[in-house]
């Protein structure tokens, strides 16, 4: 199975491990991601201003291009996923038919077919299936207690994203269980990490991310996984010394599928992630 793939800008820079592990893990479980020959910035934030349709154009241009390749587009970054899916829903919403006309006229290209924006986790869960992932797991992460942190962008607004329970999402927990880790339930799965406040209100972002990490730790978590580059950055870079490590879920997935240490891209994580995994007997 081959899916058109939209990596997004962060996955080429700070979050390259999220991307590289995902591509290699896909090969190992039996599907491939084919990066769109050309793509542009998703816009990073879904703009909800009434008259500012230009802010959604980037995301919609990507969808129009993707429509030449097929009816599905896979992405990994929580922000890209959120923006692309919402921009797509807006494009297909009969209530905004006039806007669709304007967009397509401006882009001067046909929207060949409705493109379904899928998160990598949705592909794993619905198309590949947990059983298949479990079968390919060569190094189960036994004894690793992991808190799955979804943040705000993966699950809300629930009526558009329709991804998972907005208050108590489960899909990453299910994946962690599948690859042999022990998912830890905690209270801050979908609370704010501080988001872009890290740019100008570092203290506020630190407070927010500390709440998430402290709560995860209080439930016995030894590590946190996320799929959002911004969440990973805030939790990882703002944490107190000695705090629990924060991985991309694809890094742990790669590890469980037998990828060697060099391929896990552990250099993006702060502190000593390799040391931690070694201590847990996983590396």
């Amino acid at each position, binding site marked *: 199975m081959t899916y058109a793939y939209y990596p997004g800008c962060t996955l080429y820079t700070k979050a390259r491990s999220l991307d590289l592990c995902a591509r290699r893990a896909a090969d190992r479980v039996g599907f491939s991601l084919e990066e769109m020959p050309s793509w542009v910035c998703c816009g990073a934030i879904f703009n909800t201003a009434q008259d500012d349709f230009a802010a959604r154009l980037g995301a919609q241009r990507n969808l129009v291009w993707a429509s030449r390749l097929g009816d599905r587009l896979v992405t990994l970054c929580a922000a890209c996923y959120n923006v692309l899916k919402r921009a797509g829903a807006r494009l297909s919403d009969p209530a905004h038919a006039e806007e669709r006309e304007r967009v397509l006229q401006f882009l001067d290209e046909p929207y060949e077919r409705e493109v379904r924006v899928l998160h990598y986790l949705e592909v794993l869960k619905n198309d590949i299936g947990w059983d298949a992932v479990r079968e390919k797991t060569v190094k189960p992460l036994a004894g690793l207690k992991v808190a799955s942190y979804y943040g705000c962008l993966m699950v809300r607004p629930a009526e558009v994203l329709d991804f998972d*329970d907005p*208050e*108590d999402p489960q899909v990453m927990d299910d994946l962690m269980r599948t690859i042999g880790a022990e998912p830890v*339930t905690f*209270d*801050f799965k979908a609370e704010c990490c501080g988001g872009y406040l890290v740019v100008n209100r570092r203290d506020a972002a630190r407070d927010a991310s500390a709440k998430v990490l*402290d*709560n995860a730790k*209080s439930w016995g978590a030894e590590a946190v996984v996320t799929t959002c580059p911004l969440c990973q950055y805030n939790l990882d870079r703002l944490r107190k010394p000695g705090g629990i490590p924060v991985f991309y879920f694809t890094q742990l997935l790669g590890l469980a599928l037998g990828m060697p240490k060099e391929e896990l891209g552990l250099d993006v994580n702060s502190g000593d992630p390799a040391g931690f995994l070694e201590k847990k007997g996983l590396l």
Partner: protein
Amino acid sequence: MSEDQRPERAGGAPGSGSRVPDPGPRPPRVGVFVCHCGINIAGTVKVPELVERVARIPGIAVAKDYQYCCSDPGQQMVRDAIKEHSLNRVVVACCSPTLHETTFRLASEEAGLNRYLCEIANIREQCAWVTEDRDEATDKAESIIRMAIARAVNDAPLEPVGVDVNKRAMVVGAGIAGIQAALDIANAGYEVVLVEKEPSIGGHMAQLSETFPTLDCSQCILTPRTVEAGRHPNIKLYSYSEVDAVSGYVGNFKARIRQKPRYVDFDACTGCGLCMEKCPGRAESDFERGLDKRKAIYRLLPQAVPNRPVIDPEACIYLQKGKCGVCAKVCPTEAIRYDDEEKFVEEEVGAIVLATGYELIDPDKMPNYGVGRVPDVIDGLAFERLLSASGPTQGEVKRPSDGKAPKKVVFVQCAGSRDQEHGVPYCSKICCMYTAKQAILYKHRVHDGEAFVCYIDVRTPGKGFEEFYKRATDEGVTYIRGKVSKIFRRGQKTVVWTTDTLAGKKVELEADLVVLATAVVANPDGVRLAKELKLQLDEHGFQTEAHPKLRPVETLTGGFFLAGVGQGPKDIPETVAQASAAAAKVMAMFGQDRLFHSPTTASVDEEVCVGCGNCEQACAYSAVEVDPKRRVAVVNVALCEGCGACAVACPSGAMSHRNFSKKGVYEMVDRA
């Protein structure tokens, strides 16, 4: 009582009357009476013009109008006209037949006309109220009247179907609603079959500590009733039993009751309790809301009625592994029966009261409130058990996580109620008051404790309720207006995030214990039973009354009555009042020797019927069956509700509906 249940006044029992001459051979002489209904009809329909036009229709003997036809003089006008003009059909053009059909049918009968020869033309709800243009309304009213005339002309005189009444009642559910209804009926001298699914009676009221707004002990006011119900000579109690199926019709039901295996011989057991003392098996106690364990052989509470334990086969070591048998060894009367099996019994009754009660909403619908994840978040019923003298802590307030007395308790109202996203849209009605009660009782038990109530609105519409709420605030309970967004654990504390909308601030409370006023939902077993019985339920699973204002305890299915929270959330006084009302309806029914059922039912032309059985499939009331010997459909008129589904399904035209024949319908269409 509907018209059809009312026996004729003069001339004795129906069917015996010879006073109604068969009008069949005579040409129809129709009288039409147009009601003004004040300005309800006359404000839109031009009544005088309408009467003139109607009078010119062939076959009309007389057409009249009147200000209010339903008044005494109005009815007299109809009666006089029947006699004066020798009318053999009457059409009254007025409001909906659900309102005054009975009035005019009885008035016609008083003047010597068979009541089923009187028809209503609804020119109010279906014409005057929904039409603006006066000419259009007048034309439409004429059409409606023409149709009613066509129908009346095709009507045949009929007699109500009389059935005997079995003067025994069944009450399903023995919470306070069922107990009250059963006692009232039993005290009136009728036998009652009382069915309870739990091992003993009392329902949720048996779990409560004290009751608002008077703070009297729930057990103390309930147990006299449970004891009375348990030993009443007119009450036959089936505990640990469920209604499996009901057949028959109003006045003559057959109920199949499933008695779950108790593994204890009911007659041999003396209720000494030795078995429960020695039993090594343990299970979570539902009655204690998971705050305590019970034995595998158990009763719900010390005052259990009947005072006979049951064995939980899941928790019983002997039934699971074949070893143990301690209870059998210690039982002085050899009452343990490990080979007990479920039994079915049949009871014949004339009326059924449903008192199936409630449950609390599944807290998994509100993951943000942490039930199951955060140990010190419990629901209102669990807190009742903590307050109850017979509860797991003997009335001492101790939190589940470490058994310490909580110094700060946060009560969260509307946990699932009034919450379309996570729960139910309706108000559960009892929570404001029981939360105030629980906060007061908590302050009485833990003197230096702080109590906070997070609320959206405090609703106190009841006798003494507002004063009770005032008492809570006077006793130092802090009320914070805002919807709680999240509850989670931080160390030994349970953190509640909410807002204070009056101060416009975010609020974080660090509590030792959080009590959720969880939404009340219809008991799932009651929902299942009502569906099985084909009773109407609303979108939330609460049983639907026949009329929200005027028939609040009856259902649309004859012989079924409602009591308690199964019909909608309500507190104890309201539940008891409704239960007594349901009992009164049952007694009114039992006060009659025979019940009368509308004769406008399905009927089969046996010459034409080929016995295909389509009608049997179509019937929602199990009123039609194909006679296996003669291969023709047979209608049980006592069960038939006259819906007409079978007549529609019949491919040969053998099935028809009395006074709603195909010919009549075609003529109505032609004349419209």
